[in-house]
């Protein structure tokens, strides 16, 4: 999700944000978290009003339409311009909180959701943001022809309507207990202004666009019609740094104030720099993993997939590749270890090459067999490092892992979209961008390139969405985790978040429960 043309790769989901009816305040505070490292996330620092910050990224911003998001960095930038009905906040943690909607309620069958809107909403042009416009925006997001990135994680929508000026109603075809959590990812826009979206968009978020040059720079200034507290910074400039390593130099020199997606190879060194802080959050929210095709080749056999899980030295990967900034999964459970939803008692997949050899042999992968590690070139160099570690370990049990790197468009071709056969290939990837438990839908048919299709797993997720109480939902999700852990549709390598480097006095940068870096609270220490 970083550098040159790196794509969202495959974006799954993450940490659970239980989405009960919202309470809480308006989500705007004067205090912001001084979240500079995994171990320093609780301190609060008062931030001054004013100042400018330039944020570099090796990925650029190609376009501003929130429903056409394709690159990870767009997912980071768009929330600054586009508000959502519900939201996560640094204070609220994994609780879904109000944003454009002040409260919401579901019908008993979890199929009809009614959202009460905040009064007097306006776009950045000063035009009223009516319930009709919000409904039209949601309809566009749900329209399959829009091909909205996150649509797959939202229960099928039957209808969206605006019964009155302060209400939006969403009717689902199937129960959707976690709809409010999903709506934290659906930006609200004025579809009547779509034609101007890349020139002078009528935005709904805390910042509006001052100047935009695709894949070069985006200048944002406060939106005076924003419904919440005004942002701290007078100007945010997102600039494309063609080369991430050169951008690290600029960060050290203080010429950019933040760098999104610092190369992992630079993280350890920057950790020792007193002028620069690295924010990854204390709750990793993305799953680093290796994909195999569950429907062809040796990995059609679950024993081969389990063998691979035993052959991955996760501790070494976290230490050597991810600068120690990540959780080491002991099981193969994509639910993060810090989550309340995590299930205990799952079979552990400790690093055990003897066990891996035994399971591989049972699956027909014997000494002298050859597998292919298929990595992108010029992007995610850490993935190739993971491949090299795996190559060395597999070699000790007589399995030859051939590492092939290809330019990103060629890399994608053999395994994406879901449904393609890629026998005997091991593909590194990272799944993130959706909060738990919605991220578990990353492994339903048609979504994961691994082609995992397990009836028990799919039913468990549906049961969780239909559950009417927390215990029933948790039980269903526990079943899904158990199946996942046994079936190993993908083998986890690390649980982490994309590192953001920033000058030490720029604070308020936080990582939301979907794993995205957020700059909406950023400001300078007083």
């Amino acid at each position, binding site marked *: 999700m970083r550098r040159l043309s790196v794509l969202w790769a495959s974006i799954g989901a993450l940490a659970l944000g239980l989405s009960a009816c919202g309470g809480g305040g308006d989500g705007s505070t004067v205090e912001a978290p001084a979240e500079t490292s995994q171990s320093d996330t609780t301190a609060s620092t008062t931030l001054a009003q004013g100042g400018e910050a330039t944020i570099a990224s090796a990925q650029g911003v190609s376009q501003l339409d929130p429903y056409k998001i394709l690159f990870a960095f767009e997912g980071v930038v768009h929330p600054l311009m586009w508000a959502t009905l519900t939201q996560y906040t640094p204070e609220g943690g994994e609780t879904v909180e109000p944003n454009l909607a002040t409260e919401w309620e579901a019908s008993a069958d979890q199929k009809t959701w009614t959202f009460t809107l905040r009064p007097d909403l306006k776009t950045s042009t000063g035009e009223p943001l009516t319930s009709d416009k919000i409904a039209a925006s949601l309809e566009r997001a749900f329209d399959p022809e829009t091909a909205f990135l996150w649509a797959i994680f939202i229960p099928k929508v039957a209808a969206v309507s605006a019964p009155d000026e302060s209400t939006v109603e969403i009717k689902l075809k199937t129960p959707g207990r976690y709809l409010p959590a999903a709506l934290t990812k659906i930006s609200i826009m004025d579809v009547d202004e779509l034609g101007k979206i890349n020139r002078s968009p009528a935005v709904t978020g805390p910042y509006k666009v001052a100047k935009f040059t*695709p894949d070069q720079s985006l200048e944002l200034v406060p939106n005076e019609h924003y419904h919440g507290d005004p942002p701290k910074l007078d100007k945010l400039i997102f600039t494309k740094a*063609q080369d991430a390593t050169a951008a690290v*130099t600029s960060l050290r020199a203080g*010429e950019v104030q933040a760098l999104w997606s610092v190369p992992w190879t630079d993280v350890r060194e920057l950790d020792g720099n007193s002028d620069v802080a690295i924010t990854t959050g204390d709750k990793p929210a993305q799953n680093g993993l290796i994909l195999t095709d569950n429907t062809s080749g040796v990995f059609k056999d679950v024993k081969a997939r389990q063998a691979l899980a035993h052959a991955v030295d996760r501790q070494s990967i976290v230490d050597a590749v991810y600068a120690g900034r990540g959780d080491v999964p002991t099981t193969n459970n994509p639910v993060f270890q810090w989550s309340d939803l995590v299930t205990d008692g799952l079979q552990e997949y400790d690093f055990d090459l003897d066990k891996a050899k035994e399971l591989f042999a049972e699956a027909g992968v014997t000494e002298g067999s050859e597998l292919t590690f298929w990595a992108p070139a010029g992007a995610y160099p850490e993935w190739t490092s993971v491949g090299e570690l795996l190559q060395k370990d597999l070699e000790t049990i007589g399995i030859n892992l051939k590492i092939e790197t290809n330019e990103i*468009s060629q890399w*994608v071709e053999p395994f994406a*979209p879901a449904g393609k056969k890629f026998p005997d290939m091991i593909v590194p990837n990272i799944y993130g961008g959706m909060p738990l438990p919605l991220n578990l839908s990353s492994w339903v048919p048609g979504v994961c390139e691994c082609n995992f299709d397990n009836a028990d797993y799919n039913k468990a997720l549906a049961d969780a969405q239909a559950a009417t109480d927390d215990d029933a939902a948790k039980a269903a999700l526990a079943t899904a985790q158990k199946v996942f852990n046994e079936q190993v549709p993908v083998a986890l390598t690390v649980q982490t978040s994309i590192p953001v480097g920033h000058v030490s006095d720029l604070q308020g940068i936080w990582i939301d429960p979907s794993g995205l870096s957020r700059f909406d609270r950023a400001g300078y220490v007083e």
Partner: protein
Amino acid sequence: MMRFVIRRVAVSVLMLWLASVVIFVTLRVIPGDPIAARGTLPGFTAEQMAQLRHELGLDRSILAQYLDWMSGVLRGDFGQSFFSDFSTTELIATRIVPSVELALMATLVGLLIAVPAAVAIALRPHSWLDRVLSSGAAGGMAVPPFWLGILLVAFLSIELGWFPTRGYVPFVEDPLENLRFVALPAVTMGVVVAAPVLRFLRAALLDVTRSDFVRTAEGKGLLWHEAVVRHALPNALMPTLTFVGMVVGSMLGGIVVIEYVFGWPGLGALAVDSVGKRDYAVLQGVVLLAAAAFVLTSLVVDLLSVVIDPRLRDQMST
């Protein structure tokens, strides 16, 4: 003279057309397309990809796509980005000024290094100075531009803080800041330009200084350095001008690296982004522009040579 100009222009147009064909076909032959990127989106199906390819006309024959594109080009419409919906012309317009500025400044720096050095060598050929400068030129050709750029950033930006490490400010907004930003990339690229020009000009000067008219000039009482500067240098610059044209015209490849190192928002970076995304229209536009720059530079240099060199004019007239 007119026949020469017409023939030369016709050859240039033919070269540009051939370049357009090569660019277009090559992009379609290499794996991937603008839609491939969406293959990694959750739940994006092969059917949706096929539908998008159909909407963009990517499922038509290459010939049909080419004719469509070329008819647009002839009307001044280079198509639009598949990603941002900005027209290729707009995207190029935002990048061409920084690129041209960098190319001009690098050429200026290169000539400021190469011409005095070559003259110094011609004044004392085969001396220690010649050996030092010639070795420097060989080193300049061997050194990778990105390495030199990083070296300059490390010393002049990080250590001494004299120049910014990266970025760009338009000249019209702040001329002094613009010069601060362009200094390091221009010097880096200037060294790359200077090295081959110095070697070429040195050889040309040493050749000309052995000519009868230079000896005659010296025999008529001119000092050696006056003979070199007034008589040998103008004659040696003639073939060098053509060579400089070729170096400048082919600068795009080197500039890409410089743009990456210094975060310079030029055409090279736009081209690389477009390659990664397979943003066909934008990439075709940029590469065609680069080809046009090369062809036009060669054309202008050839025409200038005829204007400047009386011998060529005589040849034309006879």
